[in-house]
């Protein structure tokens, strides 16, 4: 698959939230206003990109030589949690401004399944290092796209008259379902039509 194909796959066809249903916790939790949604999306993008590289390296340099492929889930969780903590500390030290923008969301991502998901998908699809890095970035961008769309919808919903028993989370779930259905329109035919399949 070409690089552009990977980007389109992870942003639209296999959008992490709306198609794969990974990382739904921050999707509902942090999408109340668009400002924090953008912050959350960018931090997830940053973490998925770094985590997919680190997990790729640790899988092929540590687990495969030791014949411990079956331990990958646990090892990935350990590595991702450590990585996020480390990133948080480094950002806090190096750039307080960036920490203010992204830092508060980092602890939320520590054990986010979207991050673990992209690392495992990279291995399953047997991507190489560059491909997994691109997959990580575009999965994060797909997450950002979905959460920004959702936050805009929720901002609109908050001033719309909604029945009392649908207010807040129920109406959010309904709109998320409708969004997911609209994203089902993107499938592999898109790649074939664009001529991006190998």
């Amino acid at each position, binding site marked *: 698959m070409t690089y552009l194909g990977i980007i389109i796959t992870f942003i639209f066809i296999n959008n992490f939230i709306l198609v794969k249903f990974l990382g739904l916790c921050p999707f509902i939790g942090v999408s109340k206003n668009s400002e924090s949604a953008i912050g959350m999306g960018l931090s997830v993008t940053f973490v998925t990109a770094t985590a997919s590289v680190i997990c790729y390296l640790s899988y092929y340099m540590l687990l495969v030589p030791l014949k411990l492929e*079956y331990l990958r889930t646990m090892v990935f969780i350990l590595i991702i949690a450590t990585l996020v903590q480390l990133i948080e500390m480094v950002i*806090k030290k190096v750039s307080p401004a960036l920490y203010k923008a992204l830092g508060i969301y980092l602890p939320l991502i520590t054990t986010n399944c979207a991050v673990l998901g992209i690392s495992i998908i990279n291995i399953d699809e047997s991507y190489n290092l560059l491909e997994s890095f691109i997959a990580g970035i575009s999965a994060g961008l797909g997450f950002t796209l979905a959460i920004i769309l959702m936050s805009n919808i929720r901002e609109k919903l908050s001033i719309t008259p909604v029945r009392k028993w649908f207010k807040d989370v129920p109406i959010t779930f309904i709109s998320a379902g409708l969004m997911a259905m609209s994203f089902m329109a993107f499938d592999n035919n898109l790649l074939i039509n664009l001529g991006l399949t190998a």
Partner: protein
Amino acid sequence: MIVFYSFIILLLIGSILGFFLSVAEKKLKISKDSKLIELENAMPGANCGICGFAGCVSYAEAIFNGKAKIGQCAPGGQKVADKCSSIMGLNQEKIQKLKAVVFCNSDLNSTEKEYNYKGLNDCNSMYMLFKGSFSCKEGCLHLGSCINICPENAIFKDSNGRINVNEELCIGCGKCVNICPTHVIKLIPEQQKYYVKCNNHQKGIFVKKECKIGCIGCKICQIKYPDSGFVVNDNLASYSDKSTISENTKKAMENCPQNIIFQI
């Protein structure tokens, strides 16, 4: 055997990563000044943003760095200003505490309706349609955008649709002032006890057509009770003198033909 092997490996990886993290924590530690911590604790923690900063913590940082003045914190008022100045070792003059007041006494029946509004439950979107559905274009629109934005839930609507501010809960942050499209909510000093509950600047004859209870600018309060503190400007009475509360102020309130002067 496999279980034992993987147990050992995981234990090893986990302890290496843990050791690595603890070293990193020591190396990357940031020392915080004790004064800054004290300042952060002195803040009220409402994160209302009236000081012009993102929250209480960033305002404390700005004071610490000398970028902001002490006393911009409306919810904290004099208490927080005194605390901050004692922490920073500065002398601080008195600051004025403000509170929000709705300058309109109308309920849903006191003004004529020009059309039936069926749209978003938001004053600003109603204001876009001919400045609201009520005949008075400077009065309250009764949809309660101020109620929704108030961080302290100090604004409430009574059964007739009249909107009022609970003075005890109001922290003077001014968010309602900014969101109100007709500017009918204003901030007044906390020690001000009287105010004229109307915002209509038109001549009395037009006010009477639009609203049963608006200020008609008759000047009874100004002329009959000269030292009462009420002044009529632009056909609208306002209470200007805040320091003197004389007998006449009370009399002016009782004798207002529209009963539009209120005491807090």
